[in-house]
């Protein structure tokens, strides 16, 4: 296939990818922003669903499926409000078209922040309710009865008085003629058939048979496969390169320079790797070659001695702390972390003179379209984006670097190209969860209650580095879950200092709260012990203004039998936090071996995520969040030496494995509130619950992650 590919062939290529799957790639419909084209015999009242004359309901899912279950949840919501039969509903992944498919809250077609359900629920219900009303009206018109006398059920409209019944498919032509109601009546929750009930994932069949198509599995006729040699130092540039030996490798077709390095383009990935190995590149390493982890820590320490920007100031903490009472001080540090999605980064692009197609496992289809448009000079509507399944996202796949790789390489060689990363590329060229340094000071009053609390946080701001917040302001992501910590403290001062040494930053599952939950929930535990109080009761007494925190804390403690005897050597720790719209508490049951090895036996979680659309998925996400968080607590650490990441694969950036998996119990508190997030809120409280349990077992306070087992060794 060459640049003269016809549009027909292109569509065939595109469709071939999704052929035979429940989850197909739709052909992009309509121009950007234009109304949906109406097709005879297809009832499509809006961009979210359509019904054909056979009664087949197709739902368009705008939220990429990255494991969080969006294919299931989105179709549950729409099928329920539409009164369709969920098992028979087809799901299509939305094309990039922000005018039609943007998140109504963020205004972009980019997904992160556990926003799938909470931002879309109302809109999807309304879209489906409008369709349901139109189908009811169409049936009423057909029968010549008032619309109030008909009802919908399970893919049909019925008229009970006469016993008449028409399937949705039979109403398509009539419904198509009707105006779309702007304010349709929503179902009352007691009529929900799927929402709030445990529903099994709908994408399991293709995920257990190998049929599911991830980005890395995309095959386009004539496609080449590339691997890119990148500068080991962040921000480094190619000075020169010698491709002689690389091009001699059988199967290597091109060696081209792109923004992110030198792309070796071949007939397959392994061949591309052989070519890459034979490549000689001289780098201009640039200023980052001076940066290392020890230097970053030194800079943080120095910055922590100076006042920061004030993120919150209740009362006068400084005055109370200076009043001469006993001040408890602690420093908490967390490292840089990489996402390590199970599927390494990749994308496939086909750049043609007048169009571009991208197949990508992306959390950000809108951004992908914009990136490809920018790089090709094409208008966005000439860029088609097929979002494949994602082998994990965790925030990493909202970035554009792997899209840039594919579009630039395809453009350079004039053929469709899949650029695949090795695991080593993935770990050494990530967007890292920021390392931070946090100074705490507190003093207790006579009752042991915090009279004053001071936190000074030092670290880089993700939003500021990405230009999404202004330099000089307080980065909301950096201070989240500290600035809004829930405890009742009369004199509370939170400061933040932006110290950015240039390590590329990214949104890592639960972002700020992933680390801030650890520091706050560990420090409050310190204060409880200092006061000689039970850490659970101590928190409870300070949560008077935060009833939802208190409720999940109590639920977790009760279900974990807080205070009841445990096997010898086992101890409990507790933690609670709010993030992404949900309240979570964890009780960890832990033991520490003589050699310092930490074993988490059991994690009892309580979550108030408001309306839990799919309770089964709430559990799955909490289980997954626990593993992600435990991995970070026990092992996660990215270190930098001379501007290079020192870790490279799972031997030196280990992951939790099945033999270390605790029993995870999840208890859902149905508060009746608006839905909160699920993917991220399960992370923040795991590390502090475990570390608080370690303290209970050993008297050792873990203030630096990952947990250093050497410090926990007993003679």
């Amino acid at each position, binding site marked *: 296939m060459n640049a003269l590919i016809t549009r027909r062939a292109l569509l065939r290529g595109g469709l071939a990818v999704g052929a035979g799957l429940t989850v197909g790639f739709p052909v992009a419909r309509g121009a950007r922003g234009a109304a949906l084209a109406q097709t005879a015999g297809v009832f499509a009242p809006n961009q979210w669903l359509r019904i054909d004359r056979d009664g087949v309901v197709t739902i368009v899912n705008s939220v990429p499926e990255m494991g969080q279950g969006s294919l299931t949840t989105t179709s549950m919501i729409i099928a329920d409000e539409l009164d369709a039969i969920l098992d028979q509903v087809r799901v299509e992944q939305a094309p990039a078209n922000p005018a039609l498919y943007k998140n109504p809250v963020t205004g972009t077609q980019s997904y992160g922040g556990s926003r799938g359900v909470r931002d879309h629920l109302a809109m999807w219900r309304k879209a489906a309710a409008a369709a349901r009303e139109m189908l009811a009206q169409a049936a009423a018109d057909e029968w010549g009865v008032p619309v109030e006398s008909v009802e919908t059920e399970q893919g049909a409209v019925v008229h009970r008085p006469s016993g008449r019944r028409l399937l949705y498919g039979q109403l398509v032509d009539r419904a198509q003629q009707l105006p779309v109601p702007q304010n349709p009546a929503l179902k009352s929750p007691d009529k929900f058939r799927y929402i709030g009930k445990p529903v099994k994932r709908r994408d399991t069949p293709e995920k257990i*048979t*190998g049929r599911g198509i991830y980005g890395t599995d995309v095959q386009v006729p004539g496609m080449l496969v590339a691997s890119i040699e990148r500068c080991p130092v962040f921000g480094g540039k190619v000075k020169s390169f010698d491709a002689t030996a690389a091009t001699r490798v059988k199967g290597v077709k091109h060696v081209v320079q792109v923004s992110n390095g030198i792309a070796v383009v071949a007939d397959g990935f392994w061949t591309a790797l052989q070519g890459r190995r034979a490549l000689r590149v001289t780098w201009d390493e640039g200023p980052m070659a001076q940066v290392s982890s020890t230097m970053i820590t030194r800079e943080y320490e120095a910055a922590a001695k100076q006042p920061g920007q004030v993120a919150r100031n209740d009362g006068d903490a400084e005055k109370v702390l200076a009043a001469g009472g006993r001040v408890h001080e602690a420093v908490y540090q967390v490292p840089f972390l990489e996402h390590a*999605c199970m599927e390494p980064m990749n994308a496939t692009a086909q750049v043609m003179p007048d169009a571009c197609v991208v197949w990508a496992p992306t959390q950000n289809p809108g951004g992908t379209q914009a990136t490809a448009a920018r790089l090709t000079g094409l208008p966005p509507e000439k860029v088609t984006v097929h979002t494949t*399944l994602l082998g994990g996202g965790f925030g990493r796949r909202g970035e554009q670097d792997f899209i840039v790789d594919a579009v630039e390489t395809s453009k350079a060689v004039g053929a469709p190209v899949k650029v695949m990363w090795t695991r080593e590329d993935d770990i050494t060229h990530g967007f890292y969860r920021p390392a931070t340094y946090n100074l705490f000071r507190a003093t207790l009053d006579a009752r042991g209650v915090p009279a004053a609390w001071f936190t000074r946080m030092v670290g880089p701001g993700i939003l500021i580095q990405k230009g999404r917040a202004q330099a000089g302001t307080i980065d909301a992501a950096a201070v989240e879950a500290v600035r809004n910590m829930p405890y009742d403290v009369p004199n509370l001062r939170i400061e933040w200092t932006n110290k950015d040494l240039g390590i590329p930053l990214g949104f890592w599952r639960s972002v700020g709260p992933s680390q801030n939950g650890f520091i706050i929930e560990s420090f409050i535990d310190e204060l409880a012990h200092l006061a000689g109080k039970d850490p659970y009761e101590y928190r409870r007494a300070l949560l008077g203004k935060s009833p939802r925190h208190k409720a999940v804390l109590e639920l977790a403690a009760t279900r974990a039998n807080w205070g009841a005897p445990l096997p010898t050597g086992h101890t409990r720790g507790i933690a609670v936090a709010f993030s992404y719209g949900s309240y979570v508490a964890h009780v960890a049951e832990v033991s520490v071996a003589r050699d310092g090895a930490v074993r988490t036996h059991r994690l009892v979680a309580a979550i108030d995520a408001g309306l839990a659309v799919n309770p089964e998925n709430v559990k799955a996400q909490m289980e997954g969040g626990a593993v992600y968080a435990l991995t970070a607590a026990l092992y996660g650490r990215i270190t930098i030496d001379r501007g290079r990441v020192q870790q490279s694969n799972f031997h030196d950036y280990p992951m939790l*494995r*099945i033999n270390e*998996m605790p029993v995870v119990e999840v208890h859902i508190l149905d508060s009746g509130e608006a839905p909160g997030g699920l993917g991220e809120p399960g992370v923040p409280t795991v590390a502090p619950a475990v570390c608080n349990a370690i303290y209970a077992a050993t008297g050792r306070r873990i203030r630096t992650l990952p947990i250093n087992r050497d410090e926990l060794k007993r003679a």
Partner: protein
Amino acid sequence: MISLTVNGKLHQVDVPPEMPLLWAIRETLGLTGTKYGCGMALCGACTVHLNGDPVRACVTPMSAVAGKSVTTIEGLSDKGDHPVQRAWTEVDVPQCGYCQPGQIMSAAALLAAKPSPTDADIDDAMSGNICRCGTYQRIRAAIHRAAALKKGGA
């Protein structure tokens, strides 16, 4: 030319003998169910059966598989109804799903060798398979379930 049987079908593939089996399966034969995760036998995403034994295809050179029989996730069952796959569905194991073909191939090999695995057996056989989404609890439950299904239990 190297000849090998994949999912019961004899193939002649023209690839270098040092090429890992993983890439011949995925790119030469187009069977993309077997995944790449690390390339160093550290994650198990590439697990296939070689003459019935689980191996990491990313470090198994083609020279070592000549004349042998390989089963990939696509060949585990015709309809996705191997007891392990049925159990995986019942227990709702997958999240992103990327690791699951490897997990399932490891689990199927375990059950073939040990029809009633203990938790310790599961730890032994499955700790080479990473799941970044954290589905381990369900994997354990599903393996026990598959053992019951295999014995014809309800």
